[in-house]
């Protein structure tokens, strides 16, 4: 008989989770540093409490579970799914202590939204939040976008174990032969762009007359949330706060780079520039951006009188589409303006959001790779039927090299796609149940599950707790791409049965 869940699993899982919690505590040292720089003692105390909670809980877990020998697939998956939940609640602690949330659930919603790089917010009076808490909100996006475990990966795991965890976090593209070197490369790209991007954003703000330290703070925050396609902003007005088309253009650069897969970044950085033009995913991404934008434009036919000129029309429509498609959720219009959009245009944004960015990037959603694979598989089937029975039909796609489309690949991709669609619809149905109209519910649900973060007004501190919990589940499941969560559920079912 194949061995199923055993007691060993619990020990292994709690050991690694203990380590991850300690890493989480270490990560909170940066906001403490920011708090000290800006002399925000109240904020520093909040983080002090939270760091201690992480350390003590982590060390207790480590104490009860001695260092294990190895790690298998299902343990890796359980660790990922559980550690995301724990990271959510522990990271919500300093946010809740800040007093800007109505209840702890709201703070949990915010931290899951940050980790899953969604960008839906429930925070109140954001404009008076401390710099330390604000940096922590954006740092969570940065950590979650690369993968919580990916952070711990570099420090704590051995080669073989690392791969199992890596895949659990929906990162199955091996850029380099070893997953630790891959993780390091991902961090290197992210940090290089962190410097370039934040300076670029800060530069634009300085041109607008904002003092250097404030500009750098805003640049850093916007970069961390933009690159990781989260869509948080340090002010309640989001990107609208800056009132600057130039600033928005720079964010477009950052979010498109964030939604491009790290595999492509690797190729381009190592001199294979053609990859940017030939890569199958990038091609599909660009095609689907234009496709979704076209739907939106057609939706506005006969309604362009709403806008004063072509620039403002372009600025508002394209920004929502690209922000939705890459899964960022930055918005340069008010919710009331978005609700005024014609239904077809809203549908165009929903399509963009549902498709999402590249695989192995920081974007969410079904991912263009799976859409492309579906197209290739369909093409192959049609060709197979058209040709004589004895002929063998093969279909290739270009990703670093020519890769043949095989059935297992298509099967996995289709399972995940169907799961996503079901998740989208479930949220829409639940939203409708709570009295919102279907299109708005669908919009908000897709926005949560595809980790986008555009809001049509449903997400607010006053919405029902059940809906908040459901959105948290959607964000969590959407970010980890289901399998880790199914295994976790199976694990709990088995434990209860025993």
């Amino acid at each position: 008989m194949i061995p199923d869940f055993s007691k060993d699993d619990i020990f292994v899982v709690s050991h690694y989770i203990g380590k991850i919690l300690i890493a989480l505590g270490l990560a909170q040292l940066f906001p403490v540093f920011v708090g000290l720089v800006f002399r925000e003692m109240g904020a520093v105390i909040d983080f002090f409490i939270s760091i201690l909670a992480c350390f003590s809980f982590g060390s207790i877990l480590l104490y009860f579970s001695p260092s294990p020998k190895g790690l298998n697939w299902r343990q890796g998956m359980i660790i990922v799914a559980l550690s995301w939940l724990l990271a959510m609640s522990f990271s919500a602690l300093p946010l809740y202590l800040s007093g800007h949330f109505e209840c702890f659930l709201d703070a949990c919603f915010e931290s899951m939204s940050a980790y899953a790089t969604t960008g839906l917010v429930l925070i109140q009076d954001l404009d008076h939040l401390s710099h330390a808490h604000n940096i922590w909100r954006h740092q969570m996006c940065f950590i979650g976008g690369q993968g919580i475990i990916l952070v711990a990966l570099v420090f704590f795991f051995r080669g073989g174990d690392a791969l199992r965890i890596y895949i659990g976090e929906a990162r199955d593209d091996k850029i380099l032969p070893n997953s630790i070197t891959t993780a390091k490369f991902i961090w290197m790209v992210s940090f290089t762009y962190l410097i370039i991007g934040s300076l670029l954003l800060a530069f634009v703000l300085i041109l607008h007359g904002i003092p250097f330290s404030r500009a750098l703070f805003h640049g850093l925050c916007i970069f961390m949330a933009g690159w990781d396609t989260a869509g948080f902003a340090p002010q309640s007005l989001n990107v609208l706060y800056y009132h600057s088309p130039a600033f928005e253009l720079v964010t477009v650069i950052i979010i498109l780079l964030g939604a491009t897969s790290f595999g492509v970044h690797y190729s381009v950085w190592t001199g294979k520039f053609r990859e940017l033009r030939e890569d199958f995913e990038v091609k599909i991404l660009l095609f689907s951006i234009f496709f979704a934008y076209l739907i939106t434009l057609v939706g506005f036919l006969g309604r362009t009188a709403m806008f004063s000129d072509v620039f403002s029309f372009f600025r508002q429509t394209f920004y929502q589409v690209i922000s939705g498609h890459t899964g960022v959720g930055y918005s340069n219009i008010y919710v009331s303006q978005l609700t005024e959009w014609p239904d077809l245009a809203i549908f165009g944004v929903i399509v963009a959001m549902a498709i999402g960015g590249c695989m192995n990037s920081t974007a969410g959603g079904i991912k263009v790779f799976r859409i492309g694979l579906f197209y290739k598989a369909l093409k192959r089937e049609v060709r197979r039927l058209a040709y004589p029975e004895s002929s063998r039909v093969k279909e290739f796609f270009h990703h670093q090299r020519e890769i043949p489309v095989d059935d297992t690949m298509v099967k996995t991709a289709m399972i995940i796609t169907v799961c996503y669609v079901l998740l989208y619809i479930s949220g829409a149905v639940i939203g409708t149940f709570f009295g919102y109209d279907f299109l708005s519910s669908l919009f908000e649900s897709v926005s949560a599950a595809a980790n986008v973060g555009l809001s049509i007004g449903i997400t607010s501190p006053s919405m029902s707790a059940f809906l908040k919990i459901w959105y948290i589940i959607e964000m969590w499941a959407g970010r980890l791409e289901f399998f880790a969560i199914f295994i976790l559920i199976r694990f709990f079912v088995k434990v209860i049965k025993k």
Partner: protein
Amino acid sequence: MKKRLMRYIVLLKKGIIGISIELVYPLIVALSAFILCLIMFISEISRR
């Protein structure tokens, strides 16, 4: 540490063209989307 930093700088030097290409490509995307938008806007106005 120093060795690692050196290796990083070497890679950065090699990647500098790559980075600049990557910074330009979103601009091209935005520009072509703008052209699409312009065509649609002009056709709207001429019909009105």
